[in-house]
């Protein structure tokens, strides 16, 4: 048993740390988040052309680096720590994973090299109800020739207004829940799609609304398991859930580190504030949550690797994804909120970055289901009864 990073994984983490410390500074984040696009195209170009991060989990046969989920998670943790504003999560953790899990061979051959080359992409499935399970899907697909016509709307789509490529879920008319789901891959500029940026409280992660009006998709763009693709989509969502938990872990860690650093400097009543036990105990509780989050995320990453490679432990994916997301969501929110409190008055200012973490904590908590959602999902597994209506 070696449940720790290998030297190579440590190197990947340290490289990401060093790069982001230079590239994703507070000033860079604030300048990117103020735009509708939400990221600096030059930084994205450095990431894709120099660092080659977008290729991390794409197999070598499609031009990628062929690394695993643990490596990906090591990197995502640093992105969360530095509040990275970039279409990395949407492109890699949503779209690349979707292509790897549900793409046909032809689709992988066509689209994965485009992502490797620097194209952006995202996944849309949730409609206006804002749920994260199968009932969230309300775009309707009607068969037409060997393809479909899609009508309806998607909401809360990460980087949906700027992505080059879309992967979307839709259901057959008159179906409900997990039935009748198909997945499609199509250019975002396809006729009949209108996209609108949704200004959000957390400005570091952009969201969009997509309207589909008689969008025609031909057979080549229908992904695997046509008409019964929910299990594939669920797997994609679980993988994305593990990934967002890693972003939360990094954010939790940073709220702790910056709070302790501030407390060590701030003097009141002639002592540094860090010397007061009331404050120390809150910081200790924050560290417990960070380290527990870390154990949850790294374990989930190992299982995600197994799930992608068909290993025996892969069947635990749903459970470990919900475990990580339930815990990390609550931990990040708790830590960011406590961090504001421990910063005192300055924690409430726009000038200090802690407010940005507080907002990212909430947006990542909501995205793909909060703690309550994931605990109920675990309850269904554990208690083997239908969810309470």
């Amino acid at each position, binding site marked *: 048993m070696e449940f720790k990073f290998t030297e190579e994984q440590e190197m990947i983490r340290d490289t990401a740390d060093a790069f982001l410390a230079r590239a994703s500074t507070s000033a860079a984040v604030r300048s990117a988040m103020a735009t509708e696009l939400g990221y600096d195209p030059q930084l994205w170009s450095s990431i894709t052309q120099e660092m080659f991060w977008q290729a991390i989990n794409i197999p070598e046969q499609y031009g990628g680096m062929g690394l695993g989920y643990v490596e990906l998670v090591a990197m995502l943790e640093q992105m969360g720590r530095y509040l990275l504003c970039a279409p990395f999560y949407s492109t890699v953790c949503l779209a690349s994973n979707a292509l790897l899990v549900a793409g046909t061979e032809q689709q992988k051959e066509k689209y994965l090299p485009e992502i490797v080359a620097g194209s952006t992409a995202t996944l849309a499935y949730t409609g206006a109800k804002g749920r994260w399970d199968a009932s969230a899907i309300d775009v309707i697909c009607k068969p037409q020739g060997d393809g479909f016509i899609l009508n309806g709307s998607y909401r809360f789509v990460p980087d949906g207004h700027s992505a080059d490529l879309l992967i979307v879920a839709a259901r057959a008319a008159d179906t409900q829940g997990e039935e009748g789901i198909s997945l499609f891959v199509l250019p975002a500029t396809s006729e009949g799609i209108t996209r609108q940026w949704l200004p959000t409280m957390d400005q570091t992660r952009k969201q969009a609304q997509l309207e589909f009006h008689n969008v025609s998709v031909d057979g080549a763009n229908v992904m695997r398991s046509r008409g019964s693709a929910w299990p594939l989509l669920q797997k994609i969502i679980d993988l994305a859930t593990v990934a967002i938990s890693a972003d939360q872990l990094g954010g939790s860690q940073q709220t702790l580190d910056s709070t302790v650093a501030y407390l060590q400097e701030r003097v009141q009543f002639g002592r540094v504030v860090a010397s007061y036990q009331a404050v120390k105990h809150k910081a200790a509780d924050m560290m417990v949550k960070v380290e*527990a989050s870390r154990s949850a995320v790294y374990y989930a990453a190992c299982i995600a690797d197994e799930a992608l490679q068909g290993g025996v432990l892969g069947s635990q994916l749903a459970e470990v994804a919900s475990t990580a997301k339930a815990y990390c969501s609550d931990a990040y929110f708790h830590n960011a909120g406590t961090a504001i409190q421990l910063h005192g008055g300055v924690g409430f200012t726009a000038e200090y970055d802690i407010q940005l973490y507080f907002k990212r904590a909430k947006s990542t908590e909501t995205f793909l289901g909060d703690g309550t959602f994931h605990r109920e999902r675990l309850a269904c597994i554990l208690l083997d009864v239908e969810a309470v209506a």
Partner: protein
Amino acid sequence: MKLSFSTEDEQFRNEVAAWLADNLCGEFEQIRHRGGPGDEHMFVHERIAWERQLHAGGWTCVGWPKEFGGRGVSIEQQVVFHEEYARAGGPGRIGHIGETLAGPTIIAFGSEEQKQRFLPGILRGEQLWCQGYSEPAAGSDLANIRTRARFCEESGQWKISGQKVWTSLAHESQFCFVLARTEAESVGHKGLGFFLMEMDQPGIKVVPIEQLTGTSEFNEVFFDEAVCGAQDIVGKPGDGWKVAMGLLGFERGVSTLGQQMLFKNEFEEIVRLAKKNGAAQSGAIRQRISDAYVGLQIMRANSMRMLSGGGNGELQKEAMIYKLYWATWHRNLGKLAMDVLGAESEVLDGAPYELNRLQSMYLFTRSDTIYGGTNQIQRNIIAERALGMPREPRG
């Protein structure tokens, strides 16, 4: 990262499981799942017999080096042993203080004569030990020990006087290791000695402490000029703190996965109950059951990190949070058990005060966040050692 144990370790696992299946039955069936924390006072004689059975199979002191009669197995295999032992419902080890605390201390710091005299009795499961550390004025502040040790030139023996408290199994043990002050005017960590004492003597009196559970696993131990041979001090007079602290490092987390197996058994009992009595229909209870499950899964992953790390001398943060994390989790589980039981949680198995397993767990878990370093002490340690915040003033 690799989550699995090696093929060799898995073979070892099978060997342990097979032996337990063959032996933990018949006369020992009644002590399966018994004698753990909160239940330590039960089935004492049967559990002593079980220690001997374990020894006959070569399963006491598996982590001790072979030269001292142990099995000399790796950390991984010790973990596996504890995990399988708990999975099989192995009873609380009545010899655990000797095996995991006294023995390793004697092996690390003791004299040849002490090793020969004390180790075989522990190994055979014949001699039980208790721990004489805490005192009425030395709880969280352990270094504030006041029990005195005076060397009597005439008899050539140490004479120990004072009081220890929270001493588990003192009434069943033949020996006690005692921290006492060898230098009368010394304070704090200095001037302490580490003594190996026989319990059966006129100068020692054991008085049980009745706990809120109505049972007595803990005792007060009074020392009135109790004697300890000159050869039975470990290290030199004044080295006691160093010896005592060295002991804390021995366990190295090998029993953590076993502990979680016990927790898992308790958790599963609560799940069964909730399904049976309909509590599993309640949204609030469902949330709490899942929350407990999340906590348990994370505890296991955290232990795997603990067991995989540490080689490079780095501070192991996952090890520093461990006590605070499990104790708080387990205390919450106790309350969850009662809330799942609902009104039935009040009703005892019988008069005068016969608790069922979950009631006993519920009440006993109030001590989890106190013994072995309270939650508050744990937070001080984390803030000071892991986060580098200023130390608390010490008197």
